[in-house]
């Protein structure tokens, strides 16, 4: 079946440094990938989405490119801020509007 893999459970960075959070997926359908962000004690919110191969999508300083050849949709930012500290989920849309979520990556930004 469909699956999403996020290899890092916790990423700790100093403010101002770049970050890349990994996401790879497996599916037999045409992939539609999402990144959701969840700040502490808040609901998850959509950050990015894409179904277009090799096209960069951006929002709030974060960006990601869907690469079908490598089944990846890594999330990047060139300079992290303290407010970026949160839990980030990669998700894959299945048939019937279902999403399969990865296990999540906690990003902790130090001053």
């Amino acid at each position, binding site marked *: 079946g469909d699956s999403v893999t996020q290899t890092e*459970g916790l990423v700790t960075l100093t403010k101002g440094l770049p970050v890349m959070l990994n996401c790879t997926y497996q599916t037999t359908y045409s992939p*539609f990938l*999402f990144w959701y962000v969840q700040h502490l004690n*808040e*609901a*998850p*919110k*959509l950050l990015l*989405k894409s179904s277009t191969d090799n096209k960069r999508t951006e929002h709030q300083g974060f960006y990601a490119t869907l690469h079908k050849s490598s089944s990846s949709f890594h999330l990047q930012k060139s300079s992290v801020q303290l407010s970026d500290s949160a839990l980030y*989920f990669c*998700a894959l*849309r299945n048939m*019937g*509007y*279902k*999403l399969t*979520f*990865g*296990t*999540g990556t906690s990003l902790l930004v130090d001053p």
Partner: protein
Amino acid sequence: DMKVTQMPRYLIKRMGENVLLECGQDMSHETMYWYRQDPGLGLQLIYISYDVDSNSEGDIPKGYRVSRKKREHFSLILDSAKTNQTSVYFCASSEGDEQYFGPGTRLTVL
């Protein structure tokens, strides 16, 4: 402003008691979801509802049931709660690609 609400926000129950978690949305979305979130496991889909009385099992439906009698309201029921159902439960609704999540209910089963 699009909004998904959940009640209650916090709940403590004893093993064997029945639990009712309620979710509402004001966007007239047809599709609604119940997830649970556990550390290291991400969000796991319990049930999905495509409209009133049109519900489908998700990935982990065992021990849960749902009810949707109005489009804007979706309930999650735990008959005889178990300690391993201690978790944070999120409701969501969607239109098109984006899912909108509620604030969550933290359920503790003692």
